[in-house]
């Protein structure tokens, strides 16, 4: 079947040619990849950047006097500047390279254990990924600080009245995801930041799910910390960033000790390097950082507004078609959401649906999406989650819907 490709005039067919993986078959069927919220696919341009690095200028950075080391250092620092520009950070040294969002969050949580006292409070949201809950629980265990949770509403949005009630002079840090990974809800982060700042609390936003769809401006948001993973936005796995306002990054103690992060070392005293190196101990993922820069170039070449408009078109189309299936319920129905659909059909187990449609070449995520509190709220073991990217098509959605119907028939 052919479905009119795009209403927004998005040239998806040309874009798809950039992604070699999209032409492969899985279990004898053309791959339909709808697990983009877990990991996005990689365009040839990014693959080329990786190959180029290892083929031409693989070397350790920042210390070598030789030409290769200089080339690698330049490319790595250029990538940092691309990321700075993309998120509109004021200074390039406010961009810290990390192993990804989880690592970035742990860096902040670890640092805050030196800044927070017993009885003081950290607020997180009920929509969080486990990686956003556990580091704060560990911090609270260590310091005696108290964790407070912003409850969620039925439609998967945050209860902002309750948030207001939780804020007090005890609040030191507010932590929410910009976009929920399980439901796709876009949280009202501007309002959260304003309210938190009004009582003097810092705000850390997990941008892992937002960054592939929304170009965040950290200065306009006035956010204190922002985290991103490259693999969610056409880059490689194992690399990401922490954005932090200079004043905050100066306040936080170093996270890990090692090379790169020191200025001078004697057995009596070590002085730490300046930002960003203070937080970048050891040899970093040099190639990963450079490839992350290439991924941002690639996505900016298409344009985030165009990407968001087209993905919204996919979301609307898929939601409408899915809801035609009897007994299907979509979880997370906020007005503001990214191209993520979490659903169940009757009492069918998401694992069963995912297993059957995988046999038909379709990749979705099933389970609790590392957000058990969200699943507990709905009293379900998990959901099937289809998440779209700008290289997906309505034809693929059609194939997916037919596969879901087939699974439903087999399992009922």
């Amino acid at each position, binding site marked *: 079947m052919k479905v009119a490709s795009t209403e927004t005039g998005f040239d998806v067919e040309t874009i798809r040619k950039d992604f070699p993986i999209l032409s492969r078959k899985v*279990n004898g069927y053309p791959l339909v990849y709808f697990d983009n919220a877990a990991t996005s696919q990689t365009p040839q341009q990014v693959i080329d950047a990786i190959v180029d690095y290892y083929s031409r200028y693989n070397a350790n950075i920042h210390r070598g006097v030789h030409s290769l080391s200089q080339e690698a250092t330049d490319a790595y620092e250029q990538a940092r500047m691309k990321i700075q520009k993309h998120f509109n950070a004021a200074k390039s040294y406010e961009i810290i390279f990390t192993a990804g969002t989880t690592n970035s969050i742990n860096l902040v949580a670890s640092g805050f254990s030196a800044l927070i006292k017993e009885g003081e409070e950290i607020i997180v949201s009920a929509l969080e990924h486990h990686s956003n809950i556990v580091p704060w629980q560990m911090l609270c265990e260590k310091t005696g600080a108290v964790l407070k949770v912003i409850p969620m509403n039925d439609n998967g949005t945050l209860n902002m009245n309750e948030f207001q009630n939780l804020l007090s002079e005890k609040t030191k840090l507010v932590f929410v995801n910009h976009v929920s990974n399980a439901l796709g809800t876009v949280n009202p982060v501007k309002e959260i930041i304003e309210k938190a700042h009004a009582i003097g609390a810092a705000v850390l936003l997990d941008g892992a799910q937002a960054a592939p769809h929304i170009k965040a401006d950290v200065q306009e948001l006035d956010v204190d910390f922002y985290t991103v993973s490259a693999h969610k936005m056409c880059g490689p796995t194992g690399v990401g960033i922490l954005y932090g306002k200079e004043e905050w990054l100066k306040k936080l103690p170093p996270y890990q000790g090692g090379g790169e992060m020191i200025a001078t070392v004697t057995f009596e005293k070590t002085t730490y390097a300046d930002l960003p190196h203070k937080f970048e101990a050891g040899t970093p993922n040099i190639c990963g950082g450079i490839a992350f820069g290439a991924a941002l170039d690639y996505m900016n070449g298409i344009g985030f507004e165009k990407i968001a408009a087209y993905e919204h078109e996919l979301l609307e189309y898929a939601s409408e078609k899915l809801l035609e299936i009897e007994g299907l319920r979509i979880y997370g129905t906020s007005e503001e959401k990214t191209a993520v659909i979490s659903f169940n059909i009757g009492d069918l*187990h998401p694992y*069963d649906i995912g297993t059957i449609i995988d*046999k038909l070449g379709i990749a979705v995520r099933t*389970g*609790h999406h590392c957000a058990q509190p969200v699943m507990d709220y709905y009293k379900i*073991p998990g959901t099937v989650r289809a998440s779209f990217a700008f290289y997906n098509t309505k034809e693929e959605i059609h194939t997916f819907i037919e596969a879901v119907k087939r699974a439903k028939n087999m399992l009922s």
Partner: protein
Amino acid sequence: MSNIKEIQNEIVDEFEMFDDWMQRYEHMIELGKSLPLIEEKYKVEDNLIKGCQSKVWVHAELAGDKLVFTADSDAIITKGIIAILIRAYSNQHPKDIIDADTAFIDEIGLKEHLSPTRANGLVSMIKQLKMYAVAYQTQLN
């Protein structure tokens, strides 16, 4: 009473009748639906084998010198494979259960479900069956 190997061969023969994965899965789903369920009182935390996604409960008890398993899962495909495993391993002597292999799962085209990285609890379930067998074997000696 057939031994484990005979039952495994029987299951392999049965699955050979099917031409494609769809039919195999449909058969497995049917088997899952017909699984003699574990008694509600045994569906407790202690008997729960935690896979990442589907829950699996197993209960074992001795009948004479044979070990009898009952089990359940909240996912029907997982339940189907449990039904197959139970058919092969239940009502057998503990020593035979300890010695038995799971190669027949591969032969019936369900190998992917027993991959240690698959998040369905089945690998842990087999380990659990064997651990019960080891425990009861000691009791019998």
